[in-house]
């Protein structure tokens, strides 16, 4: 009995630590006052201002666009890497291949951002492209560091995967390509979706790399939010967090429900 009391206390305190700051954030989003910390009364004023803030809306659209595109590209390339590493024996300079596909996971974002910026500047000096930085350069950078996250998920999934199914299909007359498209890819589809979602979130959330590779007309949501809260507080950002958390909780519940159904 004593140990179960400790257990519930630990879990309760842990969850309290994780959720308390978020609840505070949401609570103050309903504050009428412009000064975030001085409570004046309940109001939806900041939600209204948020939806009328063109800068934030525009940044949100740009962010979603870049995140969806870079997640898609990163997923295609990441699946190829995961598949190559597990299923293809002959990879030239394999250690180098592993180095390229795993280093972005552990490289601090700041170094990655700096290297991308200097690369784009040098490239522009040599071939005159890209003449200015913007959404395209952010997209390229995001693909580059999201590939590794997708690759690791796919690699883990394929390692667990029973190879006999593929071999059976080959014995039954499927060729290599057909096995891949009819057997392997459908089976690892949940991991592909998980990889895409992870890449999408990472891209959507990235501030550092985007700050280095951004240019005119490419202010992503984190860049705009950071400029608002770097020096002070902003009630609109509170409203934004509340909406985001609400969306996430719904996705979480949906995932939980789907997962439970899936297991039964």
């Amino acid at each position, binding site marked *: 009995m004593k140990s179960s009391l400790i257990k519930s206390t630990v879990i309760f305190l842990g969850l309290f630590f994780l959720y308390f700051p978020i609840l505070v954030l949401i609570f103050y989003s309903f504050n009428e006052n412009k000064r975030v910390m001085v409570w004046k009364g309940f109001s939806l004023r900041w939600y209204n201002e948020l939806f009328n803030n063109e800068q934030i809306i525009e940044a949100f659209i740009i962010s979603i666009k870049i995140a969806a595109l870079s997640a898609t590209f990163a997923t295609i390339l990441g699946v190829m890497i995961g598949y190559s590493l597990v299923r293809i024996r002959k990879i030239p300079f394999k250690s180098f291949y592993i180095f*390229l596909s795993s280093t972005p996971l552990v490289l601090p974002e700041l170094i990655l951002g700096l*290297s991308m910026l*200097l690369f784009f500047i040098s490239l522009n000096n040599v071939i005159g492209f890209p003449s200015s930085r913007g959404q395209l350069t952010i997209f390229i950078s995001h693909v580059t560091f999201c590939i590794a996250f997708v690759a690791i998920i796919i690699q883990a999934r394929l390692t667990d995967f029973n190879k006999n199914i593929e071999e059976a299909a080959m014995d039954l007359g499927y060729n*290599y390509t057909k096995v891949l498209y009819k057997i392997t890819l459908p089976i690892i589809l949940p991991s592909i979706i998980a990889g895409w979602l992870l890449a999408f979130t990472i891209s959507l959330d990235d501030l550092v790399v985007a700050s280095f590779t951004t240019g005119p007309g490419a202010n992503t949501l984190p860049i705009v939010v950071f400029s608002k809260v770097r020096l002070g507080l902003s009630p609109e950002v509170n409203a934004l967090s509340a909406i985001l958390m609400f969306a996430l909780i719904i996705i979480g519940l949906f995932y939980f429900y789907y997962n439970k159904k899936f297991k039964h």
Partner: protein
Amino acid sequence: MKNKLFEKYFVFSPYFWLVLFFFIPLAIIFKISISVSEWGMPPYQDIFLFDNGFKINTTFENYVYIFSDYYYIGSFVNSLILALISTFFCLLIGFPLAFYIATSNIRLRNILLVLVVIPFWSSFLLRVYAWKIILQNNGILNVILLNLGITSEPLQLLYNQYAVIMGIVYTYLPLMILPLYGYLNKFDLNLIEASKDLGLNRTKTFFKVILPLSVPGIVAGSLLVFIPVVGEFIIPEMLGGSDRLYYGKILWEEFFVNRNWPGASALAFSGIIILVLPIVIFQILYSRWSQKNEI
């Protein structure tokens, strides 16, 4: 024959992308880090000069410059200490949580996992911002402390190194919990019972059975926290003050404020050599080793 072509396509498409957009940028950092700096745009000289015959124009002065100045070394050390302390606290909070989640019944376990992951999937920036609100002079923590009579006037909780540690532990905690959970989940609970049956008490069971078996999870989680924290820029920028300078901030300012590209590149490349290379080599050796043992 067709398979060969197909395999090549799979191997080389990402290969091409990563060489072009990852390896070459790293090489460019190295190149600029050994270039002679000068005023102008770009603020460094070419490393190959062709005016009076061919000449290689490189220097290690940028490295000498950053490694002989306490300003740079000191902030790198500050970052390492910060990462060490934050990793320790993440482990201290994360381990019991991961352990109790892993030992819960399957229904509760799934709910708890989703609850741990939700904050992690929400915006990093907004989670840091939340602490800025909590730690304000008239923020909720100060209100509680004042009402409890612990302090008679608001404490300056924000803009110092403790606020930075708080923010880091909070945002990186799920990165510690998830790999720990991954390993503890595979753990045979009967081992704990067995150890108790054999007469080991609670403390001994923990140190002799649970802890040794969770070492891979601890290593994985600690690396996931430690390395990004060394290069962390946003959290010190939002919650930290001028009491401590960190590697990320120095690198950012060297590039954007001082416009010293070779210096910033030398800082970045040193970071790669000291921090990232040992781990990557370890990982490659480990994956080769595990593959060899499997075949």
